[in-house]
């Protein structure tokens, strides 16, 4: 009996050691990979730490959206990407997503993913052609998404609302 319990105790130590080792390896690889994806408190911190000079920010936000963003994720390596998530004042859920990337905008947020696209059309944002998609998200609420190319960056905005507010946010975005 005692031998068996000892065995379980040693096994527990093994599991804890593996978890600790994985965390340590994650920490070390994070320190070795300068510029890899991290979370930042503000755009200023992104500028300072990652040395990214061009950050697209919205000058307009709908009234129900909280400032500053709930999460800012950014990386400078292997390519520049800045992901900003804004939450809704009432529900606290992520309701607006802005992605600026030199690569592919593969980032996904389940709450803002269009499960049904009702309309897909071209739209001009500050004289640049973009693609506007209107439909519904997973919970059935109206959602809209706009993407366009601004210099070397791909910009994507996804909003949990009809496209009216989305277009106002897009037109207010500047470096």
């Amino acid at each position, binding site marked *: 009996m005692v031998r068996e319990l000892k065995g379980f105790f040693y*096994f527990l130590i093994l599991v804890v050691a593996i978890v600790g080792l994985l965390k340590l390896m*994650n920490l070390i690889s994070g320190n070795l*990979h300068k510029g*890899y*994806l991290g979370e930042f408190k503000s755009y200023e911190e992104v500028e300072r730490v990652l040395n990214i000079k061009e950050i697209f920010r919205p000058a307009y936000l709908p009234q129900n959206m909280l400032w500053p963003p709930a999460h800012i994720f950014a990386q400078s390596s292997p390519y520049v990407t800045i992901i900003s998530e804004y939450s809704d004042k009432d529900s606290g859920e992520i309701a607006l997503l802005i992605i600026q990337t030199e690569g592919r905008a593969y980032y996904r947020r*389940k709450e803002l993913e269009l499960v049904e696209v009702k309309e897909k059309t071209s739209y001009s944002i500050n004289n640049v052609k973009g693609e506007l998609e209107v439909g519904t998200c997973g919970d059935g609420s109206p959602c809209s998404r706009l993407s366009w190319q601004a210099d070397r960056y791909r910009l994507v905005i996804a909003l949990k609302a009809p496209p009216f507010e989305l277009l106002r946010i897009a037109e207010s975005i500047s470096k």
Partner: protein
Amino acid sequence: MKIFYFLNSFPGQYLVQSLVHSLIAVIIVDFALIIWRIEKPSLRQRLRFIVVAFPVVSFPLYQVVNPERGNTYFRLNEALFDTTRLLTIEIWGKVPVSIILFIIILLTVVVFLIQEFVPVVKQFMESGNEELEQSDDPHYKERVMRALAALPERDVNVSVIEDEDHLIFSTTGRNSVVYITTGLIDDLDDEQLKAALAHEVAHIIRNRRPLLIVVFFLRVIMFYNPVTLVEFRRIVEEEEKICDDIAISWTQRPDVLVETLNKFYIQEESLKDNRRKGFESIEEYSHNMLIKGRIDRLVMGEGKSVRWFWIKFLAVFSSIVIINYYIV
């Protein structure tokens, strides 16, 4: 940049995560076997099945349970280990670490093709053309029938092949056959022949429940995974030991099985002669190691019985599932 895209794609994540998940699984299983001193081959094999089977489904399963698992927030705040973070580090600012991983995968694929896939295809292609020369000598048939009569499972087809080499093997499927060479029969006494046949009959009985075939298919799916490559071989080794135990339970003579196994041991002198054979030589060494392992186990006798095995199995399985969930 292309590697980064690939690592973030579904196939890329499947490839990397299945590999890391099996690595974690093999570490936990191997230590569990040591900690709890699990020596019974059938129990060891059950634990080893986790290493081969679980990584095949782990990534899609986790994504179904939580589609947000791979996203940035999860990677940064919840994951124990983010593989992309490590694999996209560039050595001297030029060579990504992922290159090392891809080299390992490439080598594994080459080993899989040379050692497993090509021989299986070759055997399949030649199976219709190559006729084994069967012996008509009634002396051999009579000895085989006498040995089989002492076993609980007598309704087995045995084919005696005219060949000097020491060979005995069985086929799987509905019409299973034990093939044995005249050279081997000549070299074994009646008790040893009974032990050898008992071992093969045990294989046939166990193959009626085609668990090992399922594991083989899972192993083929993971053809790029070096951990699966090694672990599948260990499962096959455990299978040999399980059949040894079944044979002993029928014959009650472990000493005779040891003598029989010794007949398959390739002598050192012969190995030295074969040094230049390359792959064949490696195969012979690994064959000898397997035979030696089986003999040593039988000589040492039965290990301590394992109490609460299923609780231990559950502890191992759940820790593998939980830890791997947090590796993205």
